[in-house]
């Protein structure tokens, strides 16, 4: 290998050639030990591997840790980059292949966190053997992590893939940009996310299916910012592209659903309904049960907004039907809650209470405290209307505790405010004042001054 100017290259040039070569190989994995050195240098016996590791450990660039030795990041980066040169790449691929096989074997004997670490390392080296396979593995791991809401894990995986930046093919580079954009969105870093998705649109290597996704993601960003028209424009661009490309046809009903939500939230309810009905029709054609469930649920909320409560109930019931067919065990909690809201609008208190109780049962089983708190809050309101005061107070109290534990400050304040109103109604003014005061303090602390002013008005209605 050629010698360049950096200190580590000078060091390697002056080392025994065999040792220098082996140290370069040790820069391929992130950590090494005698076992890994034997993988990197086949036919090396364990005694020599241990001796070599000890020799390397005397160098300033080698650090020790709980999982073996590692080369200092900057030195490792330099050495790793050398492996991508044309004269070295074949040997690099062969060493990487041996590491993949090693981690394959290793993964059989470990579980849990250790197995996850091994899978990560295996993925990293697989990219060096066969880029497409390795990248596919990365996408699978990243998708799994996102599905589990493990954002930190996605960030680590993306960092690892970036080590191959100089040899990533354009197709993989743009897809990596897409994953980075999704990560930024998950972290609510909208500017960063927008930059990534716009880069995809500007990149000639971006395939149509990715462009469609980028448009949709830009739509999400602007929905989050509540800039509906811009969001709708992006969705429509995505839709237009998706309808012209066969590879994107399966995205169309999702985009129509997103458009339906955006139109609904912007206030254009008739356009929203049109989009949602189209989404349902297409989802039906391909038997996407989850897609139909989502679209019907959104149609239900649209009808609630319109005041067409009976139509809303029909839509929610349809959504529930499809959700149950798709074996989504916990998703129905939201639907039961929505049905509870609908029957509250109709002042059918008993039915409303029944649906809230069903929702509560599911959220309890799911371990979803915030879901429980929201439903308890709704349930308590219904119980007030039924004059079930004790039960209402009990449910508000539980909701308050759960909102507090979940650091949901706004809802915490709202629940206290609601409970304060009940205490006032049953003339327990001391507790009413306490709840109102605490609610007001919470609203003020988190910048909700209008709400704080409303509460103050209620405090002033209490007898001294």
């Amino acid at each position: 290998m050629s010698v360049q100017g950096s200190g580590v290259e000078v060091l390697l040039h002056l080392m025994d050639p065999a040792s220098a070569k082996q140290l370069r190989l040790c820069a391929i994995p992130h950590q090494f030990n005698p076992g890994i050195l034997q993988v990197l240098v086949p036919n090396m016996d364990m005694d020599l591997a241990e001796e070599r590791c000890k020799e390397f450990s005397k160098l300033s660039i080698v650090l020790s840790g709980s999982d073996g030795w590692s080369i200092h990041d900057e030195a490792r980066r330099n050495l790793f980059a050398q492996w991508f040169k044309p004269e070295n790449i074949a040997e690099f691929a062969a060493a990487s292949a041996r590491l993949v096989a090693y981690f394959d074997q290793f993964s059989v004997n470990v579980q849990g966190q250790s197995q996850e670490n091994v899978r990560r390392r295996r993925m990293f080296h697989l990219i060096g053997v066969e880029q497409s396979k390795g990248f596919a593995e990365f996408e699978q791991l990243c998708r799994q992590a996102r599905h589990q809401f493990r954002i930190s894990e996605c960030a680590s995986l993306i960092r690892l893939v970036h080590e191959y930046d100089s040899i990533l093919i354009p197709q993989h580079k743009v897809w990596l940009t897409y994953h980075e954009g999704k990560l930024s969105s998950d972290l609510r870093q909208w500017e960063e996310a927008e930059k990534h998705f716009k880069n995809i649109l500007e990149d000639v290597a971006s395939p149509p299916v990715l462009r469609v996704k980028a448009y949709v993601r830009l739509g999400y960003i602007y929905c989050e910012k509540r800039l509906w028209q811009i969001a709708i424009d992006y969705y429509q661009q995505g839709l237009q592209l998706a309808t012209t490309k066969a590879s994107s046809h399966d995205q169309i009903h999702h985009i129509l659903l997103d458009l339906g939500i955006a139109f609904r939230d912007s206030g254009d309810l008739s356009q929203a309904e049109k989009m949602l009905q189209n989404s349902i029709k297409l989802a039906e054609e391909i038997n996407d049960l989850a897609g139909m469930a989502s679209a019907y649920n959104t149609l239900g909320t649209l009808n609630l907004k319109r005041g067409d409560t009976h139509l809303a109930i029909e839509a929610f019931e349809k959504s529930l039907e499809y959700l149950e067919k798709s074996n989504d065990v916990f998703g129905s909690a939201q639907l039961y809650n929505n049905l509870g809201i609908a029957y509250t609008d109709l002042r059918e208190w008993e039915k409303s209470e029944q649906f809230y109780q069903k929702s509560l049962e599911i959220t309890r089983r799911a371990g979803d405290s915030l879901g429980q708190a929201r439903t308890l809050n709704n349930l308590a309101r219904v119980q007030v209307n039924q004059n079930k005061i004790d039960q209402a107070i009990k449910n508000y109290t539980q909701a308050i505790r759960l909102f507090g534990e979940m650091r949901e400050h706004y809802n915490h304040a709202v629940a206290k405010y609601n409970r304060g109103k009940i205490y006032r109604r049953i003339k327990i003014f001391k507790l009413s004042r306490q709840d109102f005061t605490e609610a007001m303090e919470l609203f003020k602390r988190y910048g909700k001054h209008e709400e704080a002013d409303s509460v103050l008005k209620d405090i002033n209605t209490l007898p001294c």
Partner: protein
Amino acid sequence: MTTILERRLSEFVNRDNELRRFCEMVESDNKFIMVVWGESGMGKSSLLARMIHECAQRKLRKAEFVSKDTRSNDYMAIMRKIRDDVGVDFFKPFTDLINFYTKEGYQPKIELSVTVAGSIEVAKKAQIEGSNVGDISAVVIKDNMINVPRSDMAVPETERMAKLTDRFIEGLSMVVENELLVVFFDAGEKMSLDTEKWVWGELFGAVRDGRLNNIKFVLCGQNPPKLDRDWRILVEEAELQPLGREHIINYLGKRGLDEASRPDLADMLLSHTKGKISQIAEMVDAFLQLKERREHNNG
């Protein structure tokens, strides 16, 4: 045989100012975080090793978390590592809850609701509902070391984070009740943004809000901290600068180079590396390799 740590400590130069500020921070009632930053190769990890050694000499309890590319670096990994460094017995409810969130079918062994009134002294002010604290010590709970949430429940991530953090802080408050703890974080630049937010918001936030006392943190990384005025009061900030000529000469002495050659070698190294410590170390390694090879050839 000299260990890598022993070698690092023996070759440590400069950074006396940072070390002094660390010691002052440990003894201070006002500051509880030290942030050390500098570009790669400036000697942050070596300084950290020196601080850890200082803690050992003072018999201070410590915990360390190093972010790595090939390992999980999230909030759960941090809490687990601190727990394992400090002693698992204080954290049984925490471990129990992690298992509950990650192992299918797992039922909690500890039904414990602990509320801590005001600032801390758990034993005095805690109200423990539903269980006798003495029972917990008899319960054996082993962490299944799974990261993935169990699929037979649907606990939102925000809830997992909030509840695990609360349980962890409860355990940590018992650890630090009678004894100072120093927690070291290295390679902070490898922490994801959400983990960083958790560290500052939840972990450091627990100290700032008075829920945790008697604990100090050192955070090493490549990026300067973004602090508002309220945080600045509580944080000791140290940006590592390149080595100067005298320090390089000092370092060369510790590496065993003869006195006569040190000044010229130091000038050469300063010119080539601009005082970047990792590059200085690499060049000295190379020089010593050359010397060894010549001695071997001259035999």
